[in-house]
């Protein structure tokens, strides 16, 4: 459904961030993208959704193909209209509107009548939001995250790009959110590309995963392969089979795994 071929991204005409990233998201599947801070995960998503443009960034090489269409350096609004929706990192809700208004905006590209029902659906997923009638800017961090995810559901897209959906959510909600992701994927058949730090959950719901570092994909494989990869276990999953290390005891400078 989506294929990214060997793209290079440059910010501000001089700063090269992605150095040839390729990935593939098949129809109806969940794919996850993992990697350390600054690897270029968010940049990859923005390159796909076209939002790069708004940050002085540009895809300088390679192409991005969404359902048979070239969308590299396309207009974000056209890309959304063609059914690809990104939930941006850091919540990014419209602070001076209410929750309901935010949700209605999510459905901006839709023409059908089901908006009301979908708002109820979102409220069912996140009951906390129903009670918050004030401006969204006053919501707590986690509440804003719920709203951002809810908003993406409103668009009923063909594919959602999620940038760190679990960030700032309580463990209970993280579980729920991943549950919802799985459910949406299953029930509505929406394809997903998820950038996550919580590798455990991400790999559990995903079918396939990529690991990025310094602007390159360094490892990829089915979730099971990745879950069983020793390096992934050590650096993303926290030990895996062995006894979980305590955060308290990591006092020494450890060896860092770098694939490059």
């Amino acid at each position: 459904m989506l294929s990214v071929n060997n793209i290079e991204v440059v910010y501000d005409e001089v700063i090269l961030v992605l150095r040839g990233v390729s990935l593939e998201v098949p129809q109806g599947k969940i794919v996850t993208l993992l990697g350390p801070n600054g690897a270029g995960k968010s940049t990859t998503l923005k390159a796909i959704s076209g939002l790069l443009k708004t940050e002085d960034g540009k895809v300088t090489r390679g192409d991005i193909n969404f359902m048979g269409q070239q969308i590299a350096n396309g207009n974000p609004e056209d890309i959304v209209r063609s059914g690809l929706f990104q939930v941006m990192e850091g919540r990014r809700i419209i602070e001076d509107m209410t929750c309901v208004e935010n949700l209605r905006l999510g459905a901006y590209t839709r023409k059908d009548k089901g908006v009301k029902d979908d708002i109820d659906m979102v409220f069912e997923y996140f009951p906390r939001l129903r009670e918050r009638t004030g401006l969204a800017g006053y919501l707590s961090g986690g509440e804003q995250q719920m709203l951002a995810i809810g908003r993406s559901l409103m668009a009923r897209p063909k594919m959602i790009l999620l940038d760190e959906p679990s960030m700032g959510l309580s463990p209970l909600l993280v579980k729920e959110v991943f549950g919802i992701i799985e459910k949406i994927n299953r029930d509505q058949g929406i394809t997903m590309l998820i950038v996550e730090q919580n590798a455990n959950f991400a790999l559990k719901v995903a079918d396939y995963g990529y690991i990025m570092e310094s602007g390159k994909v360094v490892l990829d494989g089915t979730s099971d392969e990745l879950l069983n990869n020793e390096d992934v276990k050590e650096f993303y999953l926290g030990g895996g089979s062995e006894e979980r290390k305590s955060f308290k005891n990591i006092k020494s400078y450890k060896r860092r795994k770098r694939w490059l």
Partner: protein
Amino acid sequence: MAGFSMRPCGDFRTTYRQDTRIFDTTFVRYAAVCGVIATGLIPFVLDGYYVNLFIQISYFAIAALGLNILVGFTGQISLGHAAFFGFGAFASAWINNHTGIPVLLSIPLAGLMTAAVGLLFGLPAARIKGLYLAIATLAAQFILEDFFARANWFTGGSSGAAANPVNVFGYEVFDDFSFFYVCLFFLVVMFLLGSNLMRTRDGRAFVAVRDHYLSAEIMGINLTKYRLMSFAISSFYAGVGGAIYGHYLGFVSAEGFTILLSIQFLGMIIIGGLGSVKGTLMGTVFMVMLPEVMESGVSMMSVFDWANSTAVTDGLAYIKEMAIGLAIILFLIFEPDGLAHRWKQIRAYWKLYPFSY
């Protein structure tokens, strides 16, 4: 992971002192000194017209730097800068005429007086932000303009006040040739002071207030104090610039300091680049040269016979005005972040070349 190594290889700093320099490489340092010396030679090589342009650039640039400290660094838009500029001009003339303090001293004193007035009009800034503040400063503009036309004791009312020429050690600086050096002196001093300010504690506090005032406050910055201070400092610069302007013209009249000039000041700093000391200078050069370049473009037309009829010359006069507007628009379309930004990019490009990307 880029953006951190934008200096030539081989030039490693070994002390923090080197790292905090205004001009970040030895080469640039010498280039700047040479630039100042070269500028100092202008009156010997170029004619009075260019000398006059330089003088205009310097007093406007000093005032514009003040505005940049307020708008670019502290993030408080002001639409009343021309009024402070004017206040400085009147104040210096007044000090000099009424107390006999020599002009060279009355200029900074006028700056201080203007700073006090700026402080007064900055008071609302403790509570008002953004465009609301901008319009409040617009009020300052009109209130001060009204004051100029009314305060006979201070400004000579609507007929204006005479301003004596600068007097350096008993030598009257009448002509542009010598006045040029007075301007150059003030320009260099004020820009060095400004650059220093911006790389030390209070300068950083200004930028912090602009970028995120809530977290700035939690980092220990007293918002009210810094908002007011930036008004005062900005007005100080405006006052000094205005005072130089006044003594240069020899005459200060209330008409000169309208909202149009305020807008022009804003234009200088936006075109130069908000929050850039260097950019301020570039922007001022741009705004001062623009009408002149357009004008000479128009005069150039007069070699053609058809361009000498009044109908055409009048049309050209409008076209010139339109071209000024258009130049600003086009400039911002292609260079919305200002000249300073482009300058940085060019430098980055050359430093990374041939490894750009």
